[in-house]
């Protein structure tokens, strides 16, 4: 399956290579570099490339390319999903997935890769299992290790792979038993020039941070489970239980994990929390343009909209922006052509407004298209879909855990066309 992996930074340097079968020369990456060159944008590099003897499947994460070399037929998603899992594991281990952090922990990374694949086929990808075999670094331990010559490799042999619940290690113990759940919903929307909603969907995810001793068996039920008709679960969730009773029943992994994601499609009515009034005009004469944006609350369910931010990718011809904001700050980056207006809290009494002029390059025809506005926002203590957790029960253990559920609504890919 997966033959080799190369990690490539944004400059095109290969800074890590790992082969699970015979060694493949890194010159195979030249085909990739060629495609990378052609694509201009790193996001536009085709994830799957064909070379005379190999196939290259790559992902782009955190300004790094994870490039895998394949020799025979394999479902591309299999590889892509695996590579993302590798990146997730690095993130989990080191807090971020960047070149510097990987270079600093080269040996751990290499050991991880060794454990995750055997002969190119995934072996251990559950972070709970991996952490039993290879302990993530932390400052205290690295200090102790340098003093005592200790190691990061688990002394005991991992049992996780052998356990009947591969995602949870045995013998977990906490002084404080707690289980927190974050329900985060992101609104993906396209709003028309005129303010009508072209499409709107909600992407929800329930992230969990469970620190419970022993083998707890949790059951989460919802006030309105009917909302959830398109879901995906962590493998720990008992699907049939969901099918029949609409409750989430599971033995959780230890630590942080994504319990479920759900999707509320555009066929349902999705509340749009803010409206945007905008006009962006470019004038033929005088090579300048005008911009005027006002944002107001629409359906916020009585909550405050926070962290409001507008990002506009201006046409190339816009040289500079001379604007005044009634609230918050704006910045314009001349090289990337990004106008960012950071508003903060939305005050319904005094609507934030940004207006002013744009100076344009002379001698260049005016752009015929208006740039679209990308909105970022956050609403605390609200799941815009109306989803609510009604209760969380624990079976199998005697103690009483702390439980908590937090709701947040965010703007996902929220775009206003102009």
């Amino acid at each position: 399956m997966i033959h080799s992996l190369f990690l490539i930074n944004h400059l095109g340097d290969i800074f890590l290579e790992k082969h699970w079968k015979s060694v493949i020369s890194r010159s195979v990456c030249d085909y990739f570099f060629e495609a990378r060159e052609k694509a201009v944008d790193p996001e536009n590099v085709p994830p799957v490339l064909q070379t005379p003897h190999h196939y290259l499947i790559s992902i782009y994460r955190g300004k790094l390319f994870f490039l895998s070399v394949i020799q025979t037929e394999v479902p591309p998603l299999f590889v892509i999903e695996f590579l993302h899992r590798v990146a997730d594991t690095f993130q989990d281990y080191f807090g971020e997935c960047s070149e510097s952090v990987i270079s600093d922990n080269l040996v751990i990374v290499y050991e991880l890769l060794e454990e995750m694949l055997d002969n190119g086929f995934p072996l251990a990808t559950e972070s709970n299992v991996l952490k039993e075999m290879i302990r993530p670094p932390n400052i205290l331990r690295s200090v102790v290790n340098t003093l005592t010559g200790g190691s990061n490799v688990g002394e005991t042999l991992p049992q996780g792979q052998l356990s009947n619940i591969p995602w949870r290690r045995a013998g977990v113990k906490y002084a404080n038993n707690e289980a927190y759940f974050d329900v985060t919903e992101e609104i993906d929307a396209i709003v028309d020039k005129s303010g009508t909603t072209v499409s709107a969907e909600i992407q929800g995810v329930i992230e969990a941070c469970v620190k419970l001793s022993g083998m707890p068996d949790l059951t989460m039920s919802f006030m309105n489970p009917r909302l959830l008709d398109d879901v995906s679960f962590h493998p720990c969730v008992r699907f049939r239980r969901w099918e029949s009773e609409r409750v989430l029943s599971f033995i959780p992994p230890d630590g942080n994990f994504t319990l479920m994601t759900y999707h509320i499609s555009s066929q349902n009515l999705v509340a749009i929390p803010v409206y945007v009034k905008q006009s962006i005009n470019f004038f033929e004469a005088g090579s300048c343009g005008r911009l005027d944006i006002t944002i107001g609350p629409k359906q916020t369910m009585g909550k405050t909209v926070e962290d409001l931010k507008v990002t506009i990718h201006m046409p190339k011809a816009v040289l500079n922006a001379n604007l005044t904001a009634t609230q918050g700050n704006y910045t314009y980056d001349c090289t990337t052509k990004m106008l960012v207006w950071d508003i903060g809290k939305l005050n319904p009494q005094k609507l934030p407004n940004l207006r002013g002029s744009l100076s344009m390059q002379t001698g260049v025809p005016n752009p015929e298209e208006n740039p679209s506005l990308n909105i970022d926002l956050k609403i605390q203590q609200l799941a815009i879909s109306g989803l609510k957790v009604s209760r969380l029960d624990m079976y199998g253990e005697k103690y009483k855990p702390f439980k908590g559920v937090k709701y947040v609504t965010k703007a996902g890919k929220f775009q206003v066309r102009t």
Partner: protein
Amino acid sequence: MFSSHRHDDLKEMLDSNKDSLKLEAMKRIVAMIARGKNASDLFPAVVKNVACKNIEVKKLVYVYLVRYAEEQQDLALLSISTFQRGLKDPNQLIRASALRVLSSIRVTIIVPIMMLAIKEAASDMSPYVRKTAAHAIPKLYSLDPEQKDQLIEVIEKLLADKTTLVAGSVVMAFEEVCPERIDLIHKNYRKLCNLLIDVEEWGQVVIINMLTRYARTQFLNPNINESLLEEGGSGDKTFYGSDEDEDEDEEEKEKKAEVAAMAKRKPYVMDPDHRLLLRNTKPLLQSRNAAVVMAVAQLYFHLAPKAEVGVIAKALVRLLRSHSEVQYVVLQNVATMSIKRRGMFEPYLKSFYIRSTDPTQIKVLKLEVLTNLANETNISTILREFQTYIKSMDKDFVAATIQAIGRCATNISEVRDTCLNGLVQLLSNRDELVVAESVVVIKKLLQMQPEKHSDIIKHMAKLTDNIQVPMARASILWLIGEYCEHVPKIAPDVLRKMAKSFTNEEDIVKLQIINLAAKLYLTNSKQTKLLTQYVLNLAKYDQNYDIRDRARFIRQLIVPTEKSGALSKYAKKLFLALKPAPVLESPFKDRDHFQLGSLSHLLNAKAGGYQELPDWPEAAPDPSVRNVEVKESVPEWTKCSSREKRKEKKVEKPFYTDSEGESGPTESADSESDSATGSESSSGSEESGSGSESEESKEASESEEEEEEEEEEEKKKKKKDLKKPVQESESEQSSEEEERKHQRKSKPRKSESESESDEDEESESESSQSESEDSESEAEVKKKKKPAESKPPPKPVKKESKKEKKEMSLLDLDDFEPAPSPQVTPVNTFLSNSLVTDLEGLSLSDSVLSPATIAPSSTLKSYELLHRITGEGLSVEYCFSRQPFSPDANMVAVQMQFTNNASSDTKNLHIEDVKLQSGMRVKEFPEIELLPAGETATAVMGIDFCDSTQAANFQLCTHTRKFFVSIQPPVGELMRPVFLTENEFKKEQGQLMGMNEITEKLTLDVKCRNEHTIVQRVTTAANLSRVPCGSDKECRFAGRTVTSGSLVLVTVATKEEGAAQLTVNCEKMVIGTMLVKDILQALTQ
């Protein structure tokens, strides 16, 4: 050289004695490897450390070895023996890792060693080792393909494995080594379907893909009727040209033939196995893993009846929110699917709307999908969307949008004019690329109805002045040439202009200029003759040979000379023939002959190792090949004697062994699901004619050993107990119960009472029910560890009337017991306690049990505490009742029997002045106030011996005297029986090796050569319970020490002529040693 010096430094560190230095060196070396630097010259220094004790150093050495062994084969051989040793390690993880590294070393010489190791590991007890064996198979295969035949044998063996851990890996091996051997799957098909949900996600992908292919060879096309209709429909839609008429006719004929053939065919009924696959994969659409979702989606696309395919759309649309690479792949597949099954994605149209922030490649793919989804009803919304896209800053995307508009226009005639007008407006766009693309598309559109659009052609003719994009210029020229009759005035003028700029044009434009010239010459030679001559002359001396050739060819063809004979007459026909309009097709059309989700599909080219998706068979192959044989092996199981045979059994039926222990709760999570499917089956059978489940149950009722039935049953049970924390052990017990039951049934028993035989005749369904009940209740008994006192076991009480008969049989067994001995209180409890043990022995034995052999009285040995002479008439005996001491579970119950042989009453019998070793405790018996002369009384006291054989000293007081007495327990009484399955036993035993294992050879007493005597003697010597065992050469017993709960495992393996081997595994070595002595004595006396 500096580098070589640095390596010297590393070598030195590796040779040192300090692990920390070695580790540091290895870390630096591995970092070198990771960066792609050459570290091969360190091989000798590194390989020396392969046997290093430090686990991290060892791991890194392995990493190094795997990387460089191939290059330094001779040196690598030095390490082999270490791995071979590792393969024999009692720890399964070490065995697995040894096999893993051994098989990763790509050294051809060790192929035989690898082969051997793989074969061995394939029948290993631990499923984890077997999984590693499955992983090693493709490694060996790639090293030496000649091993294929042998490897297939191993694969076949592992395919039969029933643990979820192994399933994914072995199917992977199957796909790499012998994907053509579809016959190996038959017997495992249903099992794979049923296990699927429990397999880890990567294995799921591989299994689903394989099963898709399998299903295509074994089942009938569920869409056999619809696919014909559909083809007819699409045929009408796509063929515009007249040329296709003939083909169509042919197709028509074919269709008729097929329809006729169909009429003869029976109405389609879905194979229940086909249904099983669809049903069991569907929940996986909810997987978090995009690859799994995609795998299920392609399975449904390729295998499901049309009406059911729709379910995958929602899941695929959900994936669109994932990483852009995932989107990319998913959209490619959606694009292919949306051509065949447009309706499926129509409700999700808006999910494919494009955002300005999407990467271009995603935008283009979404556009493709939107175009495929366009129809008469939604075209207006789609076109409105397209309008916004055309204004995008991303010009590649705009070009793609224009293409898309063109395709919509060709496919939906209603909007053709609107589209054309829109495109014409784009011709005045400021961006040249947009204009050029529009020209190309307009050209294609105009070809459909040129006569109506001479205006547009004129408009385009004007554009030649401005447009520089070669493709667009070429298109305009072609258009003018083709329809020069519609624009008779303009055409020659265009040619004039072109002739002027001919030398500066691109090649494709030049070719079109020649083309235009030729056409004009044929239609309007008066005006254009000279121009044509001029152009042809220019072309004659062009740098490009293509153009020179073309010019020469055309000159000969159109300009009449003496030589040019026959052909020139037809020049007009050749050039101005009516040309079929181009069909604007999706590049994804017909891609579905590749299995969706595959690399080959994505690249639209066959990738190496791609397995074609076979066409549906005309007639379904024999479905009975998938039937798993009725297991006659069950009765055999008990008789099965040779060790080898037993091993085989283990692999065949890990249902009893491994899957139980390994995947309890996981299974229970889904067992639920399975049982739910079971209940669904009735509805499923409605639509498919006959649901698999119902059929299965029928089968099962005919032959009780049918395994599905068992599984089902067990799962049902588990569902019931889902919330109980001890489900695992419970289910195990129940499976054991079942086992036992089967065995009992399959064996005639002479001494059976009538009620027993009655029960045998009872209908299966009933008995299976009662089985579950009874196992449950029995489990309860065990769990509570509190057998009801002075009462028969509680089972019958709970039974419904229906089951009474069955219970009778159990009660009958009680009747076999001898009459209660004087110790009234403990006897019954003892019976109920040992009943399980005895039943175990009963069921596993071939011979008939005589009631005497299980007489418990012989097992309860009395010891004297106080002789009646020293006790002045009071005599006290004690025995270990082997009954849990209810006030304190850590105490051993000691049953005392006081007999007053004196002539006077004894009063106030009690204990005083207890002297104990530290840690030991005593729970005194309640004072006996009066023991009349000649009477007997019993009392129970509890002593916590702290797992030692130290005596408990105390004074026994009467109202007149005090006697110093002491109780010293035999080691066998310091434990209580525990109930283990064979599998658990092995597992536990595996963990108690080395120091904790004591083995002793012995020769059995002549009277003690049959199994029952052994069982009896061992259980007499020690308070252990029998563990079921597949071989009659081995007896196994298990218990736990009373205080610390340490496991005590005893195995007696018999050989010829009374030779035997006794093995005791116990964490407490002292107890182990003493127990060995005691048992030895018991068996050899």
